[in-house]
């Protein structure tokens, strides 16, 4: 592989005795949409702020096209950023806000006007030139902020949870816009969010942050199908975890036992050494089949139905294993297996061991 466009190399940030992030290593391609996903306090925003130059890392380096950015002050880094809070300049109009980065670069009047028009078209806010930020909705303000951040064609655009203050419907609308703008401008985007759905919808690749380190980097489907840690499995998609003991393991797959005698063979294993140990078996609720009668073939798990929840296109079946652990199954609405199903019934759950994972 050739040298990466943007290289975050071994970043570490300490606040006194507290380490906010460590060993953050990422290689980002030109034009890529990379999302930092994680709960609050996981270090994703700290990493972004180091990129912006608002904070200096304790160790590590940031290379853009092979050149270190750390010695360059924020205002000379040529990086665009959209913030979580509304940061339009309150005393300036929309056009003046978008033109601001060009004005501080001493560009000519005509060039600024043309660029402002282009940007307004890009974010679909033509006709808003003379509005003041206070007279606009939150969604419109963030679109202007996006236009302002892109006005000087920055090589990298940082976005720090830009949609978290908006309601769900508006958020989805602007996600579509961001996706389109990314495709039109081909700018490299680093996007921070704690919303897995947002990350999956927007990103080319996702870096999952947990407690200051990156647990895994990959495309959405990769992270979902092959989570490297229990945290990633929990954070992306819905999941059932059943405690199990590992009977034998070759480091890649393992035979595990659920309850006292239900053995699942050949499960991909993550973490832990060989030999006997306790683990957690991951099942995806939508990849479990539900049988009303015990099937002829072996390998189905008998459970007791606790209740059904209607969730629109899906129905959520809550059940309990023989040894008292909860397990959820999700089936499409109208599925034959749930017709007439009621609390207390015994059903059998089937799943492909190769599609499950054990974490120890």
């Amino acid at each position, binding site marked *: 592989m050739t040298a990466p466009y943007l290289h975050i190399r071994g970043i570490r940030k300490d606040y006194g005795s507290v380490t906010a992030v460590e060993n953050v290593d990422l290689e980002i391609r030109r034009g890529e949409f990379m999302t930092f996903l994680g709960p609050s306090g996981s270090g994703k925003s700290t990493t972004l702020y180091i990129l912006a130059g608002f904070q200096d890392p304790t160790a590590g380096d940031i290379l853009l096209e092979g050149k270190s950015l750390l010695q360059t002050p924020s205002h000379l880094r040529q990086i665009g950023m959209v913030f979580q809070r509304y940061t339009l*300049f309150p*005393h300036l109009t929309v056009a003046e806000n978008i033109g*601001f980065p060009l004005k501080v*670069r001493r560009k000519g009047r005509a060039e600024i006007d043309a660029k402002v028009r282009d940007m307004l078209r890009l974010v679909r806010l033509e006709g808003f030139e003379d509005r003041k930020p206070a007279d606009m909705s939150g969604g419109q303000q963030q679109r202007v902020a996006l236009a302002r951040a892109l006005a000087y064609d920055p090589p990298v655009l940082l976005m720090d949870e830009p949609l978290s203050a908006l309601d769900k419907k508006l958020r989805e609308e602007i996600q579509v816009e961001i996706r389109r703008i990314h495709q039109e401008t081909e700018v490299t985007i680093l996007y921070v969010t704690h919303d897995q759905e947002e990350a999956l919808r927007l990103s080319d690749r996702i870096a999952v942050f947990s407690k200051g380190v990156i647990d895994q980097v990959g495309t959405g489907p990769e992270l979902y199908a092959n989570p490297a840690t229990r945290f990633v499995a929990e954070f992306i998609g819905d999941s059932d975890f059943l405690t199990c003991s590992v009977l034998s393991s070759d480091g890649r797959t393992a035979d595990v036992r659920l309850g006292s005698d239900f053995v699942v063979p050949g499960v991909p294993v993550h973490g832990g050494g060989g030999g006997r140990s306790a683990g957690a078996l991951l099942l995806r609720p939508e990849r479990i089949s539900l049988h009303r009668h015990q099937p002829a073939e072996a390998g189905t798990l008998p459970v007791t139905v606790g209740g059904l929840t209607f969730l629109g296109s899906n129905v959520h079946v809550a059940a309990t294993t023989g040894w008292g652990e909860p397990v959820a199954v999700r089936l499409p609405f109208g599925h034959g297996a749930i017709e007439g199903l009621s609390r207390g019934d015994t059903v059998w759950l089937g799943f492909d061991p190769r599609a499950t994972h054990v974490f120890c």
Partner: protein
Amino acid sequence: MLLSFERLGWWKWVLVAITGLVTAFLLLPILFIAALSFGSSQWLIFPPPSWTLKWYREFFADPRWLESAWTSLQIAALVTLFSVGIGLCASFALVRGKFRGRETLKAFFLTPMILPVVVLAVALYAFFLRLGLNGTVTGFVLAHLVVALPFSVLAITNALEGFDKSIEDAAVLCGASPLEAKFRVTLPAIGHGLFSAAIFSFLTSWDEVVLAIFMASPTLQTLPVRIWTTLRQDLTPVIASASTLLVLLTILLMLLVALVRKGFKS
């Protein structure tokens, strides 16, 4: 709403009466002085026997009055300039700074508001005597700065606390240097605070009399000091004219404040 004015019944009229009385209590002395300044009586008789502009003519004909008014304006303008400038710098430190004793320092900046002015005046008088600053414009400005600064610090820290630092950060990432970002974005955004600070600093100095009496010399007197000394020598209606002019400028400034505030809101 729990307390609706419309549903108060006859209590409504009690409230109206109290409001009227308080307003009268506050305004009547000023109206009284203004009326006297147009009265023809040498002895400040109320109601005036007839009306005249004589005392205003006398005010504008007397170079001592004009000189005092000019001195007052000069000192108030200088106090405003320094008060806003120092207040702005102090506010950045008090709001943005991360250091021990920040809250204490902020409280310290406001102490001149609660300290008896006469104590301050005596202390400054003794201190300035050593420095040879009594009876100089510098002395006046420094003394008034002490009492004006708390208003500036209060108005500007309030405005700065209400301003999201992310907006300034956004300006920096747009390519403005940290200083340029402050001038182009932060200062205009907290303009209402700077304006309040300027007006209150000006008015604090403009009608201040206690410190001014201590700082004044026979040749350097502000308008309030001139009114005070004249009052002690002879009771002339020119004092009423001078007072009315003093109040007039204050009212004009307050009107300006109201207008500008409205402008900031829209």
